[in-house]
């Protein structure tokens, strides 16, 4: 091999190695060390107050999925009606359904455009946990002294996380948004959620849980303006084992960015009451 070739090869190897190195370096940007810059409360806890948003396609499908056309009324929307591709947010890639539950998930998806069986998001029903977190709307956390309030951009949904209960108070009733008890594990806010009514879906793909579900969420500061969100979902009547989703939450940084109202009830009426309105009845 001529020296010129050798030099070229060495240079090429250097570029490749450099690219690989920079890839490995760029990965762990979100290390614990960066969390030191995260805002703190007077008592030294991370202050999660702010407007946050997930940037995933999880609301289309928690699992990885290719781009896909949608039938029926979606066609009229052209490219807007297509499902965008996504890598998924489920650790290990797949949701461990029991066989009969997997069949129900498929049925949910197939019948998602009919009023009675539509995705609860289309009906403007309260989204439940964890879906509220990754709907394509920002949400506002306000961290009080005894409670943490979260207002979600979709459907005027909200939660109160009780930080002041020595022991968990059983949910007096099943709620769409469940009952949330929080505690600190170092810098991580850990929230136990139960009392969910099981009528929410997890995404537009028909993934679902039952009223027996219990969820443990973890909000961990990673940098000044981002968190890692994790939710472990346990529901033996639907899944063969517990499973976890994880993705970053980003702080919305636009100047004077505000939490806005999206009271979608009125936008759901054309679907929900379609068959009982002279103007739209089939």
């Amino acid at each position: 091999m001529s020296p010129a070739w050798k030099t070229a090869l060495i240079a090429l190897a250097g570029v490749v190695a450099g690219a690989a190195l920079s890839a490995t370096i760029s990965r762990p940007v979100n290390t614990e060390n960066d969390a030191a810059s995260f805002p703190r409360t007077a008592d030294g806890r991370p202050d999660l107050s702010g407007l946050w948003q997930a940037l995933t396609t999880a609301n289309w499908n928690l699992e990885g999925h290719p781009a896909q056309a949608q039938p029926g009324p979606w066609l009229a929307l052209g490219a807007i009606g297509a499902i965008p591709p996504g890598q998924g947010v489920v650790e290990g890639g797949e949701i461990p359904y029991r066989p009969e539950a997997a069949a129900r998930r498929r049925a949910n998806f197939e019948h998602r455009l009919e009023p009675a069986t539509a995705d609860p998001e289309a009906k403007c029903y309260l989204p439940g946990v964890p879906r509220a977190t990754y709907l394509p709307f920002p949400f506002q956390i306000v961290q009080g002294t005894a409670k943490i309030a979260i207002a979600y951009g979709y459907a005027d949904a909200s939660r109160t996380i009780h930080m002041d209960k020595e022991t968990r108070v059983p949910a007096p009733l099943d709620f769409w948004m469940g009952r949330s008890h929080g505690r600190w594990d170092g810098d991580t806010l850990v929230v136990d959620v139960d009392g969910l009514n099981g009528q929410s879906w997890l995404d537009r793909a028909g993934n679902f849980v039952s009223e027996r579900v219990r969820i443990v969420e973890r909000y961990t500061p990673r940098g000044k303006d981002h968190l890692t969100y994790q939710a472990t979902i346990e529901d033996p009547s639907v899944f063969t084992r517990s499973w976890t989703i994880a993705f970053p939450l980003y702080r919305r940084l636009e100047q004077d960015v505000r939490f806005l109202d999206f009271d979608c009830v009125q936008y759901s009426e054309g679907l929900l009451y379609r068959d009982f309105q002279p103007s739209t009845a089939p």
Partner: protein
Amino acid sequence: MDRDVRRWLIQCAAVLALPLLVAHLRSQTPPAGSQGSASNYTVPRTPWGHPDFQGIWTTDHFGQHVDLERPAALAGVFESTEADADQRKEDEANQNAFGDKVGNYGREWRDTEFSRFKPSRRTSLISDPEDGRVPYLPEVRARLAANRQAARAREASPQVPADLPDGLRCLRGFPGVNLPIGYNNNKQIVQSPGFVTILYEMNHDMRVIPLNSPPPLGGLRQAWGVPSGRWEGDTLVIETTNFSGELAFQGARENLKITEYFRRTGSEELDYRFVVEDPTTFARPWTVWMPWLRDDTQYEVFEYACHEGNYSLTNTLRGARFAASQKKGGTR
């Protein structure tokens, strides 16, 4: 409309939402008490030094028996006797929006039956002007009455959900204002240094109020307006402007401005009043005064999921379609 069908429609509506209709048709409530405002009261503070309003509060004591405006029969009376207030509450509990007992919620349903607070003796929620009446510009009251009449005609034979009152559709109440009705009058406040949230149990409405934020830009308008909060001494002031005009509060739309004042006056009382302005609707600003009472020893705010269980709206529309088909002499 056939009598039986009409009764059936009414009953369908009553299943879920009649109290909401009641609330909608009446101009609403609340009230009262200036009890326990000791002058030596020290306002509790958050760790970051703001007055601490956090906790659960209620306006149950205004229940349904104190209207926004003072009834003519009570002209000149700011607070009635306790016996009269009890009687007004009793009368209220025994009638429905149609003025009779058919299709009403049971008395046991209403918070007024359970509340540990005495019914307010106030005779109107409006404290200024002194006559307890909305100071409409001369032509506005007549216009609103005509609108109301037209709305009732649509309600009698609804074609689409929008023909029915907002309450029956489970749309949110007007923000902030949140006038008391027969039940679920509870509110929970959570504060952080930069924000205040108020969760209104009716109808799972959580307001997010940024503190000391710049005024909203003109391009941003919302049905419920855009709120901005600030502290004036120990008083929390929330100004809400930039209404889209899609919804009306007492006839006011785009030009509406609501300024709310919250001030702790005792361990159990939060003085709350708001000033309503719109020179295109009202002859002058007017004030609602309805102190909130602390209620977190016995209560947690529940999830009021109205829309999710709104079978009434389906049944009402289905009933209207059925009635129309009967009228034409057809079968279903």
